């Protein structure tokens, strides 16, 4: 009701003013358009920058070699390929996703039907709160708690590993997945729930057999968004994964991601062979995340399921 009043007041205020001339309206439209153009141009600038810096590699045909080769600076002759980093990024992101996806689905099922009425709101707030915990803090706590735990518990390796980083990253993407799925579940027609109830289905049955299957698309979108976040993370990988440029073969291997590689190698001399791999790493990373963004867009077009961005608190 209050809302309506507020609108009414606003309308009244507007009606009292003399209407703006058309030209002014056009000016404002142009100004707003300039803002959109700024955002759009930024993307083009960044793509251009990445392509331009990779140009020497692309033109000489070294790009493919750089992307597929090993990183072996101590061998004769040395190799400066980022193959291990690409595999490291992918395996870390996928593993984190495999860990986080069941947790996110479980959390959402809990929120939609299984939770006692009093619990579901605080739990949802807690999940929202998780999004406000800085990445560097996840990394820091992981270094102080998880890494020593793994080192002592497993008696093998330094603890800085694919596993440690994946566990940490999983906590980072659980809220992303949960919140996206949650918004979708909230938008499901309430009549469906009533129908389920009248059929005598338990809450668990409703969630598992009706609501979740109906959210398959949102689940896919959540998966891709989670993957994209995991691929783009720098700090957790840099702090926890160990940064050894090797092809991962076990959970306890120390690995290096593309993001960490960029952070590590930006420190080298511009003329060094290490530095040249930087552009390739940037371009690969951008391509990977861009493909995921496009996939989510495609999904959004089909499902019209509202926003896939982190939704506001409800």
């Amino acid at each position, binding site marked *: 009701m*209050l*809302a309506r009043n*507020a*609108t009414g*007041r*606003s309308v009244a205020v507007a009606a009292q003013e003399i*209407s*703006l001339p058309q030209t*002014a*309206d056009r000016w404002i*439209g142009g100004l*707003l*358009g300039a*803002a*959109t153009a*700024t*955002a759009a141009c*930024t*993307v083009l*600038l*960044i793509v251009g*920058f*990445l392509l331009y*810096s990779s140009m020497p590699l692309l033109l000489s045909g070294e790009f493919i070699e750089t992307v597929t080769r090993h990183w072996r600076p101590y061998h004769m002759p040395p190799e400066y390929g980022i193959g291990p980093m690409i595999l490291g990024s992918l395996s870390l992101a996928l593993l984190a996703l495999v860990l986080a996806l069941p947790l*996110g689905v479980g*959390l959402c099922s*809990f929120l939609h039907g299984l939770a006692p009425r009093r619990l579901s709101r605080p*739990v949802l707030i807690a*999940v929202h*709160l*998780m*999004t*406000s915990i*800085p*990445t*560097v*803090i996840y990394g*820091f*706590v992981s*270094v102080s*708690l998880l890494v020593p735990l793994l080192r002592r518990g497993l008696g093998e390796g330094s603890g800085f590993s694919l596993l440690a980083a994946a566990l940490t990253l999983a906590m980072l993407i659980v809220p992303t997945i949960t919140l996206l799925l949650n918004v979708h579940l909230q938008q499901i027609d309430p009549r469906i729930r009533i129908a389920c109830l009248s059929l005598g289905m*338990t809450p668990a049955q409703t969630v*598992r057999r009706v609501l979740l299957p109906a959210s398959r698309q949102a689940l896919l979108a959540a998966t891709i968004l989670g993957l994209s976040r995991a691929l*783009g993370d*720098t700090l957790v990988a840099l702090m926890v994964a160990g940064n050894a440029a090797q092809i991962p073969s076990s959970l306890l291997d120390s690995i290096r991601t593309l*993001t960490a590689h*960029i*952070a590590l190698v*930006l420190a080298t001399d511009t003329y060094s062979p290490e530095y040249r791999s930087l552009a390739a790493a*940037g371009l690969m990373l*951008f391509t990977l*995340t*861009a493909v*995921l*963004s496009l996939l*989510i*867009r495609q999904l959004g077009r089909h499902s019209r399921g509202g926003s896939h961005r*982190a939704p*506001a*608190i409800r």
Partner: protein
Amino acid sequence: MRQRSDSLFAGFAWGATFLVLASIGALLAFLFVRGAGTLGPRLLFGDTAAWAALLRHAPVFDGLWPAVVGTLLLVCGSSLLAVPVGIAAGIHISEYAGPRVRRVAGLCIDLLAGIPSIIMGLFGFGLILFLRQTLLPDANTCLLLSIVCIALLILPYMIRTTETALRSLPEDALLLGPSLGFSRWRAVRHIHLPLASRGILSGMILSVGRAAEDTAVILMTGVVANAGTPQSLTDKFEGLPFTIYYLAAEHRTVGELDRAFGAALILLLVTGTIFGFAYWAHRGLEQRWSLRS
């Protein structure tokens, strides 16, 4: 059989919820227990007297004050850049743009939102190298560069929240303007924006939280371990997230490790407060709708 698998599912959902909450609880508890003892004026100002530091009579060493100032400047600066542009672009896309512009702009913004922050940092670094070779031979990585890059990082979120809030308005609200003979801008200004303000505001605040926490961008665009409080936008600066990263890796003494925990607690306090504001804005504006008037 079906019954059992359903109760198994219920158990799984409870288990997942418990696991996630317990992990987060453990994380926060660990930080608070470990960090609480470090809080105090010494944590912020080291050996320098608080007054001297605040009035800038004396530089602060071994304290977090410069990092706190750096982070606050970063948050304010990038919001100042990103909020107006973000809201304007959001309004443009949802109210003014035709279907083709909307599609192309939407694509660009989705791509921008997907860009990892380390690439934004790389871009900023490249930008400085480019500027040095062309227009500004004295350009250098600095606070201003970090502010610009962080603003670009949070811009797509600002645009999207504005756009979503405007587009999810009920149809009759959208028809109100034309029916009163309002020009488009007038309808936006006096009907759509006030109605969508709560969504926009809470979205804005959440995006600002991202500006406070990002480390990868500032890592490459001007943050250093020791700089003191910045005196101008072209100075190097310190930042809380970077301080945590740096001290976590290489504390020389137990005291420095303690400072890392103190920094983590302060940063958590900052992002938690921002989150609290977003929550408050959302709840409060559910009842009091209009932002202005």
